[in-house]
Every structure is written in C-alpha cells, then in structure tokens.
C-alpha cells in the first residue's frame, strides 16, 4: 500500500483521495452493522457499474499499444469473474440485477464510456488506475472480518494489490497533461457512489 499512497496521481489529488476512499457505508461494513437494504443497493448498483467498467476495459485494451496490454487483459478476465460473483450473490439474496440504475451510478458509467471513446490511451490508463486504486484503498481500511469478510478480502487481498500496482506502473510510465484531471474526476464519482450506497 505504500507505493499506492506515494503515487504522484494520488498525492496530487489531495483531499479528494480521502473523500473517495472513506465512507459511512464502508465503516458500517467494517463494524458489521450495515443495514441489509444498503448492502443490497450497493450490490445491484455495483453490478451495473461493473458492467460499464467491462465495456471501458475492453475498449481501453483495444486502444492501448500491444506491449502495455497484459495488465488490462488480466483485469478484464478478473472483472468477468467478479460479474459472475455478483450474479451468484444476487441470486442467493433474491435481488433483481436488472433493476433501475441510480442516477449517480448512471453518471459514473456515462463518464467512463464517454471518456474511453474520446480520450487517448494514456488518460485511459490513469482513469482506470483511479477506479481500481481508490477501490483497493477503500476496502483496505477494513479488517477482513464479520459478515462481509469475503468482500473485504477480495478487494484488499494480494491479487488485487498486484493488479493495482501494475496499473500504477502503466499510468506513471505513460503520463499525459490530462491524466490528473481525469484521475480526480474518478475520485469525485467514487465519493458520490459511496454516498449513494449509504443514503439511497
């Protein structure tokens, strides 16, 4: 986690980084006091988000030079496994994954899709690093215990850490004048998304 906190994009984001990686929802997950409806809301909305992120990663992969593609390929395969996990969880809990998309989730998804088509690959790498690094940092603040230990382990574990580190290297070795702006915009969406999962 030290390399993550030291990443230039993270340090330059300042207060936004804290806002994107701490949330009442997450505190309640850590304390084991999360209301079931909040967890269910998160599960459905995060599924919609992951669906858009799949499109983002596929298009970003296609736009990125071949020599840099491996982490993106690995990430795409991992994301598909995550989608299957979401489906299984939703089935267990009797949730409809085709339910309405919250406008906060929708805006995040639209932002990703608009960005992936219109921005150069270097900006896309910084944007993806923002998405995954903030997620890793958010879940890593929690101890993997309680009813949601499985989720905490998934997004704070070694495998995810290594993936995020590979994205950090890609983003930092392909700098672009717009990278920080997009990285920061991701953090605003992350902050709003976590708020939505708690407040509805």
């Amino acid at each position, binding site marked *: 986690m030290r390399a993550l906190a030291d990443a230039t994009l993270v340090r330059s984001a300042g207060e936004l980084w804290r806002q994107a990686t701490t949330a009442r929802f997450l505190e309640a997950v850590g304390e084991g006091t999360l209301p079931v409806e909040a967890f269910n809301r998160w599960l459905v909305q995060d599924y919609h988000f992951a669906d858009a992120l799949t*499109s983002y990663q596929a298009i970003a992969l296609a736009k990125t030079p071949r020599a840099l593609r491996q982490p993106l390929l690995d990430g795409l395969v991992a994301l598909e496994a995550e989608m299957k996990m979401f489906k299984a969880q939703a089935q267990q809990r009797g949730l409809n994954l085709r339910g309405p998309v919250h*406008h906060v989730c*929708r*805006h995040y*998804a*639209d*932002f*990703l*899709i*608009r960005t992936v*088509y*219109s921005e150069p690959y270097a900006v896309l790498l910084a944007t993806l690093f923002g998405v995954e690094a903030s997620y890793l940092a958010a879940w890593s603040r929690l101890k993997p215990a309680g009813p949601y230990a499985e989720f905490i382990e998934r997004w704070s574990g070694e495998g995810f850490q290594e993936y995020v580190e590979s994205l950090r290297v890609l983003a930092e070795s392909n700098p672009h004048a717009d990278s920080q702006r997009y990285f920061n915009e991701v953090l605003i969406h992350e902050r709003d998304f976590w708020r939505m999962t708690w407040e509805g």
Partner: protein
Amino acid sequence: MLHETLWRACQDIAEACRRHPFVRGLEDGSLDPGVFRRYVAQDAFFLQAFARAYALAAARSRDLETLSAFCELLNGVWEELKLHASYAQKLGIDTAHVQPNPATRAYVDFLLATAWHGEMDVIMAAMTPCMRLYGYLGVELAKTRTSGNPYQEWIATYSGSDFGELVARLEALLDKLAPDAPAVREAYRYAMQCELNFFSAVMEEDP
C-alpha cells in the same frame, strides 16, 4: 407517431420545466441577469457536446438520407451556438473555457456516451428531448408578451419557424429510426430529466 408517444409520456417533466422559476423568469423578464449569464455559459458547453453528438450520429448513419438529415441538424445547432456567441460576447463570457456544473456534466456525458456507444434508436431518443422541449417552451412563452422583456430574443429564437422545422426534422428521423422499445423510452425520459436538472442547477449555483 413515436415522437408524440414519448413526449406525452414525459408531460410531468415538460410541465415541471414550463413552471420552473428559470422559465417563468424568462417569460416575464424577471430572471436575474446573473442566472441568465450562468445559463448561457452552461448551455454553450452543452451545445458544443450536442453538436459533437450529431456529428457522431452522422458518421454512424446507414444511408444518405439520414446522413443528410444529421448534417442539417448539425448546421442548426451551429446557428444556435452563434446566437450564444452573441449573448456571450455581450455578457463577457468566454464560451471556450466554461466549467460545467454537475448537472451539465451528467447530461453531456450521457449524450456523448450514448452517441459513441449506443444504438441509433437510443441516440435519437437521447437527442430529441432537448429540441422538442425548447420548441415547446418557446411557443408557450411567445403567448405572453411582456414589453421590454430582455429575454425576447431567446423566446423569438425557440418559438420561430426555423427552430420548429428543425424539431420536426429530428422527430421525423426519430420516428424513422427508432421502435417503441423500453431502452428508447428510458433514454428519452432520462434526457428530459437532465433538461429539468439543467434549469435547476443554473438557479441553485452560487453566483
């Protein structure tokens, strides 16, 4: 016709726009000039994205007739941008460097994400509400004439026959290219909601 079905299904939002303090302020001329200034800046940012969305739709068109229609609509929005440039010049706004507020950003991201990534029917559904709503508001506001209304030019633009023809052209294209499907209805309604949020955001923003 599909365009009427979609419009009627969103009457609640259309009426909320009609009754919105921003629109009422344009109607009787009482709108705070500072709010109008913010509106012009945000709308210029929006229209630049709208022009890009037309261009993307033109590039993705499958026949010459549709390509030609999108080129004409693109010209129409270009004329609207010129109108904004004249307002902006009077108001001292640099339309090339506008910071979009969250409502503008959400609307623009939706339009561009749809224009790049969506199917043509959903693109049409996303783009039509802006035009139809402004045509409707223009005609409604033109019914009341307040002497010395500083926003008369705005009302004249959107109630004029040139704008009305563009709306009809776009709606004919929507009828031609889109079926009555859930994704089409959903995109149309979301765009209408974005319009309402757009008015609210310029009123609420700090001066």
